[in-house]
């Protein structure tokens, strides 16, 4: 009997906690979709958050994008040279960046920078009773804090991905010219020639889901943070871990759906 109780507490308790967390997250997402359409609309805060999330991430996303394009080009060249397909280098790198590497790497960077920031900020507001203070002053903290941040990440991550892709392609152009001599116009024409609608649109569409995942997980972890400074750190950390994981899951689903639709 005692053994049975031990087994229950050992195996069932974490399972119960997992399902309870999933249930609460679903409720949180439902609350977001309910509040997002109801007035009042916090446009000023939305603009402020979009600026903070979008503009302030530009340098980091730009630098990593440039390095991503440069390194991918340098690493791919020897293999393509071996097969006598060096001329395919710009096209191969372009398709890789636009379809997969650009969106995923940019989303992961945003998850680390923006997701952890949102998680830590809301958790610290929770710990210092700022969210309670909003609530008692008659302002809906969910609408003011959560809806604006989730909308901002959903709208800004796609913009950051486009920016990162463009910079990465410039990095690729630099990489091509380290051991070769291709002028920019030729490089650009090769890039545009090899890009299809089926490369660009599905890749662009999934970035909205990446942004939503980063925002909602960051907010969820911060909003339900446990009390204490330890809880702030844990919220920031788990926001990054969970949103990064979700980015890969969304990517996997998006790739499957795209290949089904286009019969790749």
């Amino acid at each position, binding site marked *: 009997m005692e053994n049975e109780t031990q087994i229950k507490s050992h195996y069932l308790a974490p399972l119960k906690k997992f399902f309870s967390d999933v249930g609460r997250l679903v409720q949180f997402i439902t609350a977001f979709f309910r509040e997002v359409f109801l007035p009042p609309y916090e446009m000023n805060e939305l603009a402020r958050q979009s600026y903070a999330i979008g503009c302030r991430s530009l340098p980091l996303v730009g630098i990593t994008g440039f390095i991503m394009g440069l390194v991918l080009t340098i690493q791919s060249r020897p293999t393509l040279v071996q097969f006598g397909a060096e001329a395919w280098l710009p096209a191969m790198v372009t398709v890789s960046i636009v379809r997969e590497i650009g969106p995923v790497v940019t989303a992961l960077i945003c998850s680390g920078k923006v997701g952890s920031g949102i998680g830590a900020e809301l958790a610290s507001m929770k710990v210092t009773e700022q969210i309670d203070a909003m609530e008692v*002053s008659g302002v809906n903290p969910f609408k003011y804090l959560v809806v604006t941040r989730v909308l901002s990440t959903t709208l800004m991550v796609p913009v950051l991905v486009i920016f990162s892709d463009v910079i990465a392609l410039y990095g690729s152009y630099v990489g091509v010219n380290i051991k070769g001599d291709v002028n920019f116009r030729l490089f650009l024409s090769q890039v545009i020639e090899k890009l299809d609608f089926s490369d660009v649109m599905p890749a662009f569409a999934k970035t909205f889901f990446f942004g939503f995942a980063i925002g909602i997980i960051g907010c969820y972890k911060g909003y339900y943070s446990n009390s204490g400074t330890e809880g702030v750190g844990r919220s920031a950390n788990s926001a990054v871990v969970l949103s990064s994981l979700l980015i890969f899951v969304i990517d996997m689903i998006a790739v499957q759906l795209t290949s089904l639709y286009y019969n790749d």
Partner: protein
Amino acid sequence: MESISNIYIPSEGLQLPGDERVVEIKDLHIAFGSTKVLRGLNLVLHKGENLVVMGKSGSGKSVLIKCMVRLLDADKGSIEMFGKDIEQVDRDELNEMRKKMGFLFQSAALYDSMTVKENLEFPLRNEKNLAEAEINKRITEALENVGLREAANKMPSELSGGMRKRIGLARTLIMKPQIILYDEPTTGLDPVTAREISELIVKVQSKYETSGIIITHDLECARITSNRVVMLKDGKCYAEGTFDELRGSDNKWVHSFFE
């Protein structure tokens, strides 16, 4: 005097500013898991009085005032304010009732990302009828009341503990509340600043004719601010009286707080 069962009642009668009841709490119960915090608490707040609530840590003092603004939902019982049971009202009505109440948090809970002025403006954001000039007038008046007019453009991180509490109080005053709930207003402050905050609470009470519930462990604060003191024990009101009555009490438990 309010007659509440199972409590120690001091011998002398109380001099209250008014008899009109602005808050009436009946048989309030709340538990967190298996821990019962409030177990049938009864309490009355009269118009214009400052009621100090004292008790051991974990006796449910802060839980009580959080139930009053519905930051926590009680398991059982009723809290009547402005003629309505706060446990029964819908979200819109609750927000309207909250506008008539101020809440000074223990940490002041100023919004870190906003200046002092923006902190004060924040509760007024849903007041569409207020003109810009009226908002500025209210902000200036609230800052003058707490003696910090020059702090309008400072960030909360630039303020001392006492200044943060004052700004927190100014933020509650901006909505011109009828009831103010103070959660340990002098905790973490030096004796001089703590006294200034206590005197400010009395000044606010007399100037705006507010009623207040003050949660505190600070005897000096209780002495300065209270018209009446209630002591909580085992989730219920155990004793009530004026500060001097309770201090002079021969009840061992009550007396131990004033030693």
